[in-house]
């Protein structure tokens, strides 16, 4: 059911929630967390849809915080959805006027007691997520650097602002690639001399993968540019030739290994809901992300001389 409350308070929202639950026959769910989504009217539909889908794996209370018309008089409107798309509860909160500056006063009383809080910025990441009023409430803060106009600059800001509990979808998108790379190097392989990550120009995931490989394998990594979609190739130079994973269609990757038959493996780009579900699976600080991000920030990605006329190269070593 959907309940609309206009010009309301968090107390009234809590009462309405209790009442709704009672009317639905006490069908409460064991909610495992509160998910705060910081969004706007334009982004809210997609974000809530993805969150509802992720909530199937992680039943939660979703608080969608939307700021509207900062010049208007302060007012809080709420739209409560229970027993519909997701197993938990969704509350869309629209804050008018100066109230928009005090979103935490709206969110805090509505957090599910005793369970973790995750704050997600699907669109624009704040400068310091851990210091944002809605980030302070959460132990896990999820940003998406790829949503910005200048992802690399945003990632650099996030690196400097990093506090344990921060994470970025740029890193989440790397998981499938990283697990394939780890599985590839599980096999006995010749010594790796250097490596390359090839992707679209603005692709924080590719930068993070290059930085991660540089950190873990201690080999120089090149970052080259292609037309996409997403990441198109990761390869290692070895004395026996190149070990290459290429993915040109964003769906299926080919693993080429010197002296062995090429092998295909599904490596599809994932939907927002899947990324969010992965983020909600672990709520402790991601140390490997922290180290990778720090390495990216300190060593940076330098632009190397363009060897291939089609490829613009940057190197971290």
């Amino acid at each position, binding site marked *: 059911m959907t309940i609309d409350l206009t010009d309301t308070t968090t107390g009234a929202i809590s009462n309405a929630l209790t009442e709704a639950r009672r009317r639905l026959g006490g069908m409460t*769910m064991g909610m495992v967390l509160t998910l705060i989504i910081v969004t706007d009217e334009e982004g809210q539909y997609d974000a809530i849809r993805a969150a509802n889908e992720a909530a199937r794996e992680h039943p939660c209370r979703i608080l969608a915080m939307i700021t509207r018309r900062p010049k208007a008089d302060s007012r809080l409107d709420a739209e409560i959805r229970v027993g519909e798309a997701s197993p938990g509860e969704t509350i869309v909160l629209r804050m008018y006027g100066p109230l928009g500056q005090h979103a935490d006063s709206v969110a805090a009383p509505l957090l599910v007691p005793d369970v973790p809080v995750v704050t997600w910025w699907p669109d624009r990441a704040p400068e310091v997520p851990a210091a944002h009023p809605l980030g302070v409430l959460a132990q896990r803060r999820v940003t998406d650097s790829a949503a910005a106009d200048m992802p690399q600059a945003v990632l650099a800001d996030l690196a400097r602002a990093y506090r344990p509990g921060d994470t970025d979808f740029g890193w989440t998108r790397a998981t499938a690639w990283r697990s394939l790379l*780890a599985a590839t*190097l599980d096999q006995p392989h010749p010594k790796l001399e250097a490596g390359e990550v090839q992707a679209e120009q603005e692709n924080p995931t590719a930068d993070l993968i290059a930085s991660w490989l540089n950190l873990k394998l201690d080999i120089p990594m090149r970052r080259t540019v292609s037309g996409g979609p997403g990441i198109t190739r990761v390869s290692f130079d070895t004395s026996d030739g190149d070990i290459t994973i290429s993915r040109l269609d964003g769906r*299926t990757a080919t693993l080429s290994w010197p002296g062995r038959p090429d092998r295909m493996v*599904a490596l599809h780009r994932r939907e927002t809901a899947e990324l969010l579900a992965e983020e909600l699976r672990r709520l402790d600080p991601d140390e490997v992300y922290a180290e990778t991000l720090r390495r990216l920030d300190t060593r940076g990605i330098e632009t190397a001389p363009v060897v291939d006329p089609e490829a613009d190269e940057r190197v971290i070593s």
Partner: protein
Amino acid sequence: MTMPNAGTRGPAPANPGVIATADDPANPLRDPRDRRIPRVAGPCVMVMFGVTGDLARKKLMPALYDLANRGLLPPGFSLVGFARRDWEDEDFAQITYESVKEHARTPFRETVWQQLSEGVRFVPGEFDDDAAFDTLARTVSQLDRERGTGGNYAFYLSIPPKFFPTVVQQLKRSGLSDPGPADPVTGRTSWRRVVIEKPFGHDLESARELNAIVDAVFPAHSVFRIDHYLGKETVQNILALRFANTLYEPIWNRGYVDHVQITMSEDIGIGGRAGYYDGIGAARDVIQNHLLQLLALTAMEEPVSFAADSLRQEKEKVLSAVRLPVDLAAGTARGQYAAGWQGGRQVLGYLEEDGIPPDSRTETYAAVRLMLDTRRWAGVPFYLRTGKRLTRRMTEIALMFQRAPHLPFAATDTKELGQNALVIRVQPDEGVTVRFGSKVPGGAMEVRDVNMDFAYGQSFTESSPEAYERLILDVLIGDPPLFPRQEEVELSWRILDPIEQFWAENTKPEQYVSGSPGPASADAMMARDGRAWRRL
């Protein structure tokens, strides 16, 4: 068991069967803190015998697809079917495609299917046909060359045990079971693993014979016995509940627990399984494996780690401490379903089912009372029951606690207060319930039982992997904690054999009406102890 691969680490070649290529500590990309990266199987081929069976179509092939879809199968993974059918690779691929489309848990993706289907092969033949196994051997070595599967083979014997001797001997004769010498350059050996399904024999002797057959060809560490119950999330959660919390362990003993009830009830009859079921019965079919495994996980001491060996040691210890009732007539019960109404439909009795002899003495319901001779459980009975055509389908472990030694209330106030209980619901509606007394709102002091409920929840379980996904992945990785060892199988038969023998010599199963909670003798067995079964 979420402990990644603790059991698979260690110095390499001595134990090639459990050394997984995944999780190699030498791989710098594998960081124990990096839990986003899943365990992925190394390059390999799965050879499946009995691909035309229900299990293969409904569970195994969909599970393989789901694993591929989750990115957990290695590049080049190949599946070879072997059966007595006049099929080409494409026919088998088509059958696999249909079973995946119909039964897979995760959404169907054409690209994933493409990748999987490129590695699908079929070898037609009888089990005693040397030529067919030679073809099989050529097929897999060709896959090694074409798809880089590295000479690693898992043989899944989804076939009746009577075929094991032939198939296992054929694998030996054709050289398929032999991993060959270590690679001169890397020093690695390829692996062979064999997967078998229950029944692991029908008594101690036959279990040993069966084991001897497999053991003659495959070393013990490369034999994986599937008890799909152990792949279920809730069953693994027993370990988390007990050993990750402080709340339960202090009361998990004879000081607080009055008795334990472990139940697996089914609402269906034997269906088309008459040939298999008659002569086997409920106790051999369910108690010997599933219920005794649940008992072991519930009653065992804390393992020193979740490595396969530590876990199995604790399970074996507690299974070896099981003591049977002195009077087997009073401490056991068995029944056979009679015609009646189950779930709103009129159903036949067991003796009227197709293929069942009218004088069959096979039980479809079995209950036993077991005691454990340990300090923790001395004097606490464990009641195990299972049956077909009962009121509803349900599997649970219920710890029933002692009543409070003193109640500072008037007797009438606590009339409706039962025993506190902690119930682990294995299926359906997986979760945990704690039952305790609470004051009924109102002017009078009246205490009544209420439930505190943790549910994995309908929607939640939708995305949790099927038991077979977990188990197949563990086989391919070579991670054995969830698979019972031969010792456990033998210990279970030691418990069950005297009961079966007593039943065979002394009793006839009592008829119970379909849709009822079981035979009256089972209720009488509890009543003698001053207890009652939990309602189904």
